[in-house]
């Protein structure tokens, strides 16, 4: 009975009500209901740009017709964000942000709360999934030159989002108040101590105490559940608005918005809805399948997603024999460890992230996509990815002499990608880019 009750005066005004012919009666009522719905929608649409937004972002938003699976990662990241918000809100209902109660409240969530284990595993697996998706998303940008003009600001907003999500992960990591939580926060807040003159004051300011304690836990909780998520939502919105303003790149790196038909539609593009909408939807389903396999069968991922040491309550007097941050931070952590100098190590680690912001201006290549770039760019990107993986491995394992030298070499390769980019992108031979996307 669609729309039958849309207007409270529906029944009273319908003349067919007394006629007795039931089939016509229902049909008329339905038509009437639909008309009322349409009127309501029109009323709303003149006051809120619904159709306009739908056209702008879906039905009239032209995307290149050669997008591959890499282009579904944005939609998947949105789904993961939604998962984090939903499971996070439910965890907040049962979690206690005190140093006496935090660890136990997690155990209660795991053992007593109905489906508590599910919320926790969704949230912890979601954190790791977020970084897998985002690192791939970022790699896509580097591979196809998506950061190049005119998408520099889309890139900057994306990098700011990565920083925010790293911060969000860091603040959240303290909350279970296990050994890794405590010593991770101890090390990370100590990083501020390298700033000359104000360093020690700054460390005490961030912790609110002589060491990481109740005050620290409570403010990290506030930042993790309110401040940073709000900022993330704001920046996601800006990221998407900026992208739709300049249009999507594609694996060929060819600007499809240059060549249009008489009606102004890009010849090599198609509206986002319905084809890519459905493609994204399928990719999301595929992702959720894999995600659920991890959530239900391998939630600790062999100690990668949930570390064994974090099942021991925090002890301020004893560092575990082997500590490492969550896997998504280990490449940067390995760089910190590889440099035998306090300030130097912190500087190298920070610039490893910050250099990514500069990529749009470091790349001097006349072409966007790796498909048309020369050999140097390909080797440099392979080096970046390889060193990122190896550093990630070194950061997880105990330090030995040869690993330290390996980490130093990988750090050089990682930085080489950025620092020599203005040179190798200028001197290499690129292939000629066609005007239209090749079929």
């Amino acid at each position: 009975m669609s729309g039958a009750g849309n207007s409270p005066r529906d029944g009273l005004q319908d003349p067919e009500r007394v006629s007795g012919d039931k089939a016509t009666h229902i049909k008329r009522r339905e038509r009437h209901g639909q008309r009322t719905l349409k009127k309501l929608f029109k009323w709303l649409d003149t006051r809120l740009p619904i159709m306009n937004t739908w056209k702008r972002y879906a039905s009239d938003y032209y995307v290149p017709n050669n997008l591959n699976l890499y282009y579904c990662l944005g939609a998947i990241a949105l789904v993961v964000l939604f998962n984090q918000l939903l499971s996070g809100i439910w965890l907040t209902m049962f979690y206690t942000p005190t140093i006496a109660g935090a660890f136990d409240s997690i155990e209660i969530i795991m053992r007593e709360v109905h489906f508590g284990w599910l919320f926790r595993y969704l949230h912890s697996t979601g954190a790791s999934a977020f970084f897998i998706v985002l690192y791939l998303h970022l790699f896509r940008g580097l591979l196809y030159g998506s950061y190049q003009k005119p998408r520099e600001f889309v890139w900057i907003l994306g990098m700011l989002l990565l920083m925010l999500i790293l911060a969000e992960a860091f603040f959240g990591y303290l909350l279970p108040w296990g050994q890794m939580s405590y010593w991770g926060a101890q090390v990370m807040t100590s990083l501020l101590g390298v700033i000359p003159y104000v360093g020690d004051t700054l460390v005490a300011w961030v912790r609110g105490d002589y060491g990481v304690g109740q005050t620290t836990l409570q403010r990290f909780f506030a930042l993790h559940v309110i401040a940073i998520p709000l900022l993330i939502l704001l920046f996601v919105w800006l990221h998407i608005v900026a992208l739709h303003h300049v249009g999507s790149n594609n694996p060929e790196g060819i600007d499809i918005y240059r060549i249009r038909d008489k009606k102004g539609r890009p010849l090599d593009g198609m509206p986002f809805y319905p084809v890519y909408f459905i493609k994204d939807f399928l990719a999301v389903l595929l992702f959720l399948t894999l995600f659920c396999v991890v959530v239900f069968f391998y939630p600790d991922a062999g100690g990668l997603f949930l570390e064994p040491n974090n099942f021991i309550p925090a002890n301020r007097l004893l560092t575990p024999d082997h500590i490492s941050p969550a896997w998504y931070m280990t490449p940067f952590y390995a760089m910190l460890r590889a440099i035998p100098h306090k300030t130097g190590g912190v500087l190298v680690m920070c610039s490893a992230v910050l250099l990514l912001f500069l990529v749009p201006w470091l790349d001097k290549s006349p072409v966007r996509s790796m498909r048309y770039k020369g050999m140097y760019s390909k080797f440099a990107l392979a080096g970046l990815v390889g060193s990122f993986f190896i550093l990630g491995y070194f950061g997880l394992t105990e330090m030995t002499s040869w690993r330290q030298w390996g980490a130093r070499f990988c750090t050089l390769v990682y930085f080489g990608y950025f620092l020599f980019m203005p040179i190798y992108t200028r001197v290499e031979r690129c292939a000629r880019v066609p005007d239209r996307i090749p079929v």
Partner: protein
Amino acid sequence: MADYTSIDLVDQPATPPSSSLEIHRNRLLLNGVRVLGGVGALCALTPFIASWNPTDATKKTGGPVQVDLSQMQPGQKMTVEWRGKPIWIIRRTPAMLAQLEQDEQLLRDPESREQQQPQAAQNHFRSIKPEYLVLVGLCTHLGCSPVYKPNGEAIPGRFFCPCHGSQFDMAGRVYKHVPAPTNLEVPPYRFIQEHVIEIGAI
């Protein structure tokens, strides 16, 4: 009289200002508002930032701690808590003290020139009484708690930081070529009796 408020608020004034003096005055007032507004906004941040500083109650919990050392055996290590940090007290054996001179060329600051200890402990042993070593048990690199290895296995150091591999000798002095920049910190302490120390007071 022209309505100047409308000139300030919209890009195109309803009535153009008649003289350059008026334009100049408008610009001056507008800039004044911008600067004062900016300063005001920054000042309004004060309570939000200041609230993060440790409270007076927190600072009071950082008072001195008394520790009785009379029960300690030679070579024994004991850990107490002061200001949420582990404080190590080690009763060093004569052999340990003699060992201090062996590795000095491998150390970054063997003379303890860096201000990582109170004056009374700025000596060869980095302690007030050579026998008793008192240290803040946190690595000077990034604040992990190093592991005590009195019998030193494969490494020269007697304290090994599991986080980033820094090493220190039996006086908490840092080795070269490790990430930790300085020797382990000696907290302020004093002997109030023959075998009782007070940590956190000089």
